[in-house]
């Protein structure tokens, strides 16, 4: 199936800049005194706290439960005491704060009793998913979508291929590269469990050709365990380096030649995609009973002296991690969370590392000098570079004019915000920013319309209810009057008959 690779339109060949952070092995970030855990570190409903201020917690203990279906559990990354449950600064482009649980660590790092499962085939597929949900596993590639949902094939779809995404196409980021180099067996553990849960036969581990070490290590690990029943029909596929191949839909197009429908999801065409980091976490969660409490974070950039990859507990303040890497940075100076293409600027100092924080970038090589955008010259470069075949130039005009309906007609919501258009724009127009603006604006308007519809309905219901009440009241009054009149008439009649009797 994967002998012949396909391709997608547009895309860019970028300078990877990955050497700086792959010189040393993955190191552990020292335990922080205070861990701040946002209740929303995934896509969906925020988790609901199940601890109180003052509670003692152990490493790996559940501190918040999944609230609703699209939600996961959250765990204490180390042992200590819950000292606050309140609004704290969170790593979000808005710079707003969100509800967090803060734990003061005791330095002992005592684990709660774990329940490793040696043979996952003793579990049903449903139990596997439930365990992963309780282990708080979400997509570690950057989006943070709860993984247990993506491991449920449902009744309508048969999954043909599981794609393990080790592409890591964005420059500077190397956390997936390093995890493949150092923890290949752990990734294979995860693959077995995922294949079992999805009841899928075929699995491909896709890696870009700029990671030769990861490719050979993964191939070797797979060769050593090829007799294993759940690793049959699993292979490593090497693809050419091109940005943004790591994006789910583009990757599927390259590997299988199939296109995921615009507003559809991969499972509709029989494919499920998971990131290598997530795969590793799934293996740990089942085999060792370890919930998701840490991740590998790449810290790199021209201002970082000891760049590298760091296994960091969630909630660790980013400035501590940056200080640990000997970063040259003024307090409050902005840095990038994520890569140079899709990441966003953050400027707070006490922001915690979360489940989706894959890379902290301080100082970019050959950073473009700040310049005010020039007018669009309609050169069409953006349309050539767009991997989704959109028309960024048209979308830009409509977003600028706030013609949201038109942006929708031109499929704005298919935009993956990869940043290729902004990158190639000779006028340096921040195109992606315009698209993000138009997207959130559209969603907000939709919400407002929905709210207005509900308000209208409630108001109308109220009016009809009042009308009904009024009519009922009138009806009652009428009846009472009638009854009164009847009794009066009866009395009069009686009185009349009495006088008649007397007269007689």
């Amino acid at each position, binding site marked *: 199936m994967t002998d012949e690779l396909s391709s997608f339109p547009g895309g860019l060949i970028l300078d990877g800049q990955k050497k700086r952070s792959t010189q040393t092995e993955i190191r552990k970030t020292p335990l922080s005194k205070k861990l701040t855990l946002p209740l*929303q570190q995934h896509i969906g409903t925020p988790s609901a706290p199940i601890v109180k201020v003052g509670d003692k917690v152990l490493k790996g203990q559940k501190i918040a439960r999944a609230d609703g279906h699209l939600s996961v559990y959250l765990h204490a990354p180390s042992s200590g005491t819950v000292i606050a449950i309140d609004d704290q600064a*969170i790593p*979000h*482009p*808005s*710079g*707003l704060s*969100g509800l967090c649980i803060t734990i003061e660590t005791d330095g002992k790092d005592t684990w709660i009793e774990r329940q490793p499962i040696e043979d996952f085939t003793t579990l049903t597929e449903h139990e596997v998913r439930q365990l992963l949900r309780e282990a708080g596993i979400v997509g570690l590639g950057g989006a943070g979508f709860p993984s247990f949902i993506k491991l449920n094939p449902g009744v309508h779809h048969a999954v043909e291929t599981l794609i393990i995404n080790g592409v890591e196409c964005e420059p500077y980021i190397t956390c997936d590269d390093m995890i493949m180099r150092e923890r290949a067996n752990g990734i294979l553990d995860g693959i077995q469990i995922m294949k079992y849960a999805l009841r899928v036969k075929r699995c491909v581990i896709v890696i870009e050709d700029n990671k030769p070490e990861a490719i050979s290590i993964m191939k070797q690990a797979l060769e050593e365990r090829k007799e294993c029943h759940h690793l049959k029909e699993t292979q490593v596929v090497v693809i050419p380096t091109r940005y943004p191949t790591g994006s789910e839909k583009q990757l599927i197009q390259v590997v299988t030649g199939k296109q995921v429908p615009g507003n559809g999801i991969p499972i509709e065409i029989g494919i499920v995609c998971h990131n290598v980091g997530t795969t590793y976490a799934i293996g740990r969660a089942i085999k060792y009973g370890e919930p998701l409490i840490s991740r590998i974070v790449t810290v790199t950039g021209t201002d970082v002296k000891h760049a590298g990859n760091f296994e960091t507990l969630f909630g660790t303040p980013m400035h501590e991690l940056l200080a640990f890497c000997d970063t040259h940075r003024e307090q409050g100076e*902005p840095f990038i969370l994520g890569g140079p293409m899709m990441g*966003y*600027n*953050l*400027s707070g100092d006490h922001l915690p590392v979360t489940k989706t924080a894959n890379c902290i970038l301080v100082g970019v090589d050959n950073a473009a000098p*700040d310049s005010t955008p020039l007018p669009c010259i309609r050169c069409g470069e953006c349309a050539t570079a767009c991997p989704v075949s959109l028309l960024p130039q048209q979308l830009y005009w409509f977003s*600028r004019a706030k013609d949201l309906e038109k942006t929708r007609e031109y499929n704005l919501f298919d935009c993956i915000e990869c940043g290729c258009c902004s990158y190639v724009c000779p006028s340096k127009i*921040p195109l992606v*920013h*315009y698209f*993000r*603006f138009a*997207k*959130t*604006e559209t969603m*907000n308007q939709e*919400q*407002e319309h929905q*709210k*207005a*519809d*509900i*308000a*209208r309905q*409630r*108001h109308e*219901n*109220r009016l009809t209810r009042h009308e009904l009440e009024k009519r009922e009241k009138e009806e009652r009054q009428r009846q009472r009057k009638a009854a009164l009149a009847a009794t009066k008439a009866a009395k009069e009649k009686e009185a009349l008959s009495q006088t008649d009797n007397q007269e007689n």
Partner: protein
Amino acid sequence: MFTAIIAITLMALFFGLLLGFASIRFKVEGDPIVDQIDKLLPQTQCGQCSFPGCRPYAEAMAAGEADINRCPPGGESTIQALADLLEVEAKPLDDECGVEKPKTLAVIVEDRCIGCTLCIQACPVDAILGAAKQMHTVIADECTGCELCVPPCPVDCIDMVETKLNPNTWRWPDPAHVDLKLGGQS
């Protein structure tokens, strides 16, 4: 001559009947233009436009009896949308009706509430819950921020608080007006 007159008369009669039948058979309930206008209004039912609710205001606008700039909660964007729909010139908000304010939400200070039910009767969207001599509370999701519950309260226990922006309702700022280096914070 006579045949022509008879023919025309018969045809007129036939088409007249056809039109008469169509107007009864395919009668459109309500006034579609009123619905369209009503859709653009924010449905706060606050009455600041001096009409008793959004729909009466929409009806007045459709009849040409009211101006399009009388809705403070809708603000500039609603006026613009109404101008586009009705093909008239947009104009600034009539300050007689009020000023455009950030969105608010009614919150009952529970210590002070005496359970008089006056606010419940005032709420146009049934967003206040409670019973006589029981504490009342506002269903935050349903409150439109119309402020109609504030004046009837005898103990002044209803506060209008600005709705707080959270990361899920936050919108990327308009790039035309911000400094992008600040990480989108405006």
